[in-house]
């Protein structure tokens, strides 16, 4: 059973339309949820968390249905977002004492350990916390619970290198149990390429691609080639990234065409370069 299954979910917000979006977040794995600004990532995560209601479609979380089982879902899902605001509570310690009451799965010893790892103290005033330190507080609150699903919306914004490493270790520790799952949205694609098992890419409210991280990254290759007859290869699975004279740079979808097939069409392949997630992202998401 997946941790999260979205089926043809739609949500209209002003001029923005999300979906119909279908998405699966498997258990025992880290799933990266990526896309350009305004693609609908936060809207989607909010729907999973019951912040807002879908206009159509089904949202299943840990075997429960949102919004019908909102309470059951929220008691099993931990959520981190830069939008969480604890300023009204004054001090870090007061927030922790307050939120722990909500969660039967709260682990006080774990909370103390996390505060040490992230370097925040009970006596610190929340208004005086840096942006990064506020994220750290959200992370402590999410990770001090024994949740089944961790939903992280931009959890690395403002985090220093040290805190980022702590977070990565925590994420991978979290999925040591294969009934748990992590769904993480971030623009730090190199981090996600390393940490995440699965990836879902959305753009303008629609799914572009979803699957294993290594399959997505390995599926595309950048090829520089010289054209024999000056004609660009307009074929399925080939995207022309750049060209100048008889030189061209191509993005090849190896599911459709292998670089070796270019030679048969009169091209001289001068280089074949594997791609990073960041490069795949740029190639698959059209510029606005």
């Amino acid at each position, binding site marked *: 059973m997946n941790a999260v299954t979205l089926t043809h979910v739609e949500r209209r917000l002003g001029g923005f339309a999300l979906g119909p979006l279908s998405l699966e977040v498997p258990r025992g794995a*880290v799933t990266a949820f990526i896309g350009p600004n305004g693609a609908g990532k936060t809207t989607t995560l909010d729907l999973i968390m019951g912040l807002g209601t879908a206009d159509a479609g089904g949202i299943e979380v840990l075997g429960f249905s949102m919004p019908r089982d909102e309470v059951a879902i929220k008691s099993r899902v931990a959520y981190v977002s830069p939008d969480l605001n604890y300023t009204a509570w004054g001090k870090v310690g007061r927030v922790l004492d307050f939120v722990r009451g909500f969660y039967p799965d709260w682990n006080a010893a774990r909370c103390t350990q996390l505060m040490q790892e992230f370097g925040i103290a009970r006596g610190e005033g929340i208004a005086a916390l840096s942006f990064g330190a506020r994220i750290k507080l959200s992370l402590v609150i999410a990770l001090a619970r024994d949740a089944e699903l961790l939903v992280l919306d931009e959890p690395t914004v403002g985090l220093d290198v040290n805190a980022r490493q702590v977070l990565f270790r925590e994420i991978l520790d979290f999925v040591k149990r294969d009934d748990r799952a992590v769904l993480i949205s971030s623009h730090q694609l190199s981090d996600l390429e390393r940490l995440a*098992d699965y990836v879902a890419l959305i753009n303008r409210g629609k799914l572009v691609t979803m699957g294993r991280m290594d399959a997505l990254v390995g599926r595309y290759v950048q090829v520089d080639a010289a054209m024999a007859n000056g004609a660009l290869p307009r074929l399925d699975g080939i995207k022309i990234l750049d060209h100048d004279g008889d030189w061209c740079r191509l993005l090849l979808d190896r599911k459709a065409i292998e670089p070796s097939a270019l030679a048969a069409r009169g091209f001289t392949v001068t280089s074949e370069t594997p791609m990073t997630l960041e490069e795949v992202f740029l190639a698959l998401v059209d510029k606005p």
Partner: protein
Amino acid sequence: MTSRTLKIGPISPAAEGPLYEQIVAGVKREVAASRLLPGAALPSVRALAAELLVSVITVKRAYEELERGGIIFSRQGLGTFIADAGAEETRRSGCDAARQHLRDAARAAREAGLSEKDLLDLLRKEF
């Protein structure tokens, strides 16, 4: 089943090759140097992923490749271990890799107009 931590060096995008290949190479290195002996238990996939800060799939892929190469084997419910023939397989695949590199070197040397003697001199210097 407890297992000692793998000391295979940092897995880094700054190093050559995909991350899973770096894990494969690291385990092979340890086996070839007899720091990992036949029967030795490897960490679980999830434990090693957390330790190396890489995705579970990356470690799975590395273990699958090592298993295909006969260097490790896994027993359902028990864990993953260095195979008896692990050291030999590592040496054999190292030998294959060296031969492939020599073939490439020979081709590059011919293209650069070097004689057989020039190439052997170069090889002696490198060795």
